[in-house]
């Protein structure tokens, strides 16, 4: 059989489709249909508290309202800001941890398990622990900083619009850096060690080898890790919900939390659906841009 690899004849193709059908069906039922229904809901006025308004079609009114809604715009800024800052920290720390784990020769298994522990803790539990740590009265972080004279006695992290971000970002970094580190470790292990050895023989120093060999070759793994983390961070909900509730005021309110409050507390299903769709669009837009701009250029360069 001299058929070129990757090509299927008709029967095979049919069997392939048949085998994939259940997966497609599941995807349609659990992902496509709900997103479609939410999008349709977003085009309606629908408020459970106000049944006399009915459920009239309102076109893009909900999206127009969102564009004029200062709280929504704030939430977009918060979501993007949080995602960029926390993922940047996670990537830098993740690379460092991955290099560290890669260079360790003894006890690799236990070290990896230890590094992965924060990732295994449920986010809500982790958030509660961090809340205790940052609480003004008796919180470990607060008392330590107070004793060191860094902050005033009456300082409260959760009362300041900027300081309130610190527990959220720190908790996210603590929790997800291990994930990034493991992804990058896999990337490191895929790099041919002979390249490093050749450079060493040629007299390149450790820093030189890191910046001209290891990091460039690790870049594709970094791009993948960043994509995973950004998509996750743009949907941030639980950390903000538990740690600050979006406060003070709405200074730490991300989009998902605003959408949740709109649907579950205000019972404005139509507007809430529009907000949820905007979370989806934001994530989707990021994924598209990321894959097109960075992903492709790196993937294409790699074989050269």
């Amino acid at each position, binding site marked *: 059989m001299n058929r070129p690899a990757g090509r299927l004849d008709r029967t095979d193709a049919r069997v392939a489709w048949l085998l994939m059908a259940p997966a497609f069906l599941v995807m349609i039922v659990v992902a496509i249909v709900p997103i479609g229904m939410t999008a349709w809901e977003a085009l309606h006025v629908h408020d459970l508290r*106000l049944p*006399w308004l009915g459920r009239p079609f309102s076109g893009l009114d909900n999206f127009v309202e969102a564009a004029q809604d200062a709280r929504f715009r704030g939430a977009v800024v918060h979501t993007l800001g949080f995602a960029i800052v926390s993922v940047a920290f996670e990537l830098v720390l993740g690379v460092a941890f991955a290099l560290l784990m890669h260079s360790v020769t003894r006890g690799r298994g236990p070290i990896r398990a230890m590094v992965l522990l924060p990732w295994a803790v449920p986010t809500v539990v982790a958030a509660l622990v961090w809340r205790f740590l940052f609480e003004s009265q008796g919180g470990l972080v607060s008392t330590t900083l107070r004793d060191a004279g860094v902050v005033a006695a*009456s300082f*409260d992290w959760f009362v300041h619009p900027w300081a309130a971000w610190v527990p959220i970002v720190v908790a996210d970094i603590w929790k997800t850096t291990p994930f990034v580190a493991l992804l990058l470790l896999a990337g490191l292990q895929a790099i041919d060690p002979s390249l490093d050895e050749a450079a060493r023989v040629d007299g390149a120093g450790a820093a030189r080898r890191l910046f001209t060999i290891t990091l460039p070759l690790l870049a594709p793994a970094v791009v993948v890790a960043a994509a995973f983390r950004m998509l996750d961070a743009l949907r941030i909900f639980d950390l903000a919900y538990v740690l600050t509730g979006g*406060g003070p*005021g709405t*200074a730490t309110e991300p989009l998902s939390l605003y959408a949740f*409050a709109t649907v*579950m*507390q205000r019972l404005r299903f139509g507007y809430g659906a529009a907000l949820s769709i905007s979370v989806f669009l934001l994530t989707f837009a990021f994924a598209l841009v990321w894959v097109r701009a960075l992903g492709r250029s790196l993937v294409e360069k790699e074989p050269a």
Partner: protein
Amino acid sequence: MSSRSVRLLLLLACAGAACSLPEGPEPLTFSGSALGTEGTLVRSQLARFEERHPGVRVELRVTPDAADQRHQLYVQWLNARVRHPDVLQLDVIWTAEFAAAGWIMSLDDALPDVGDFLPAALAAAQWNGGLYAAPWFVDVGLLYWRTDLLPEAPRSLPELGDAARHAVSTGAVPFGLVWQGARYEGLVTVFLEHLGAFGGRILAPDGRVTVDEPAAVRALTFMRDALGPRGFVPPSALTWQEEQVRFAFQNGDAMFMRNWPYAWTLLADSARSRVAGRYSIAPFPSAAGGEITAALGGAQLAVNAHSANPSLARDLVAFLTAPEQMLERARFVSQLPARQSLYEAPALADALPLPLDQVRAALAAARPRPVTPVYSELSEILQVHLHRALSGQETPATALRDAAAEIRMLLARSGLAAPGTAP
């Protein structure tokens, strides 16, 4: 197939699903708080109702005590038009919302002695001129004060401020006053009391939004200054709910506390409380141009609009809100009765641990929160802007101007430009 074999099949199918064949009439279902002593009380009262109505079974469906969670659960059930629970315990601020949505049925002419209910509680149970719930028990905001630090309760808000500031500056206590400042419903009740104390209102009786008027700005400015560097309320209060506030007062850290009646019994427990025997209560005082105002809380009972047994359900509501049951509730769980006549009867003074004259004074000043189906959103708008002003992100005037504008927009969008009137 014979009916016998059908029955047999049903039995077999049911055995797998752990159900039983229907026997007798469907039970009446009641949903509400039923933890600890309160649970024992509710169960015994329901059992008494069963005794009086032979053949009737009442099933208790415990729902979460956290208000948001219970609200969410009720919305899911009622919006799906399920028949159970027949009788629901509602927070006072939900009644208008549920009535307007058509989820609970009118109780007009279903209850005896409606005129006996406390006026503020009755106002919160009505929507569009009709009665939709029966006041069950009431909660009222109180000022707790330290009898070892002060000879008598402050007569005005400025007097309270002076005493609190003095106590902090002399080091008698770390905090002067503690209140619920987290961004949640409790903050609105604290604001409502300051607002009334300065002569302001959230909505005027005719439904206009008046929360941006000068009196309101003065009230919020007072609250913000109290948090400031020369103030007497700790900044951390902006993250505190009822329990954190109680802990601060209970540990002896504060001279004054704004809280609900429930704290009385817990503070009296000398094993846990450092202020046992050294505190009393008074109505939250007023400032110039205003009047003493106490936020009204509490619970009401309503009947599911899709109940299969509405008349029996109404009977249960009437039974549970009868004076006898209310008095028993006061005795066992210290919850204040919602009937005026009981405050004149000596039995209540024996039943309640709190000083009844002060409770009566606070109840006389009780004010319901705005009665509107969109209350939850109105409250959320206020919470956000109040919290921004108190955490220094907006000035009190800007915060209230924006809050008022958003509330006006909300009422207009809902077709409720003048709350209290449904289209």
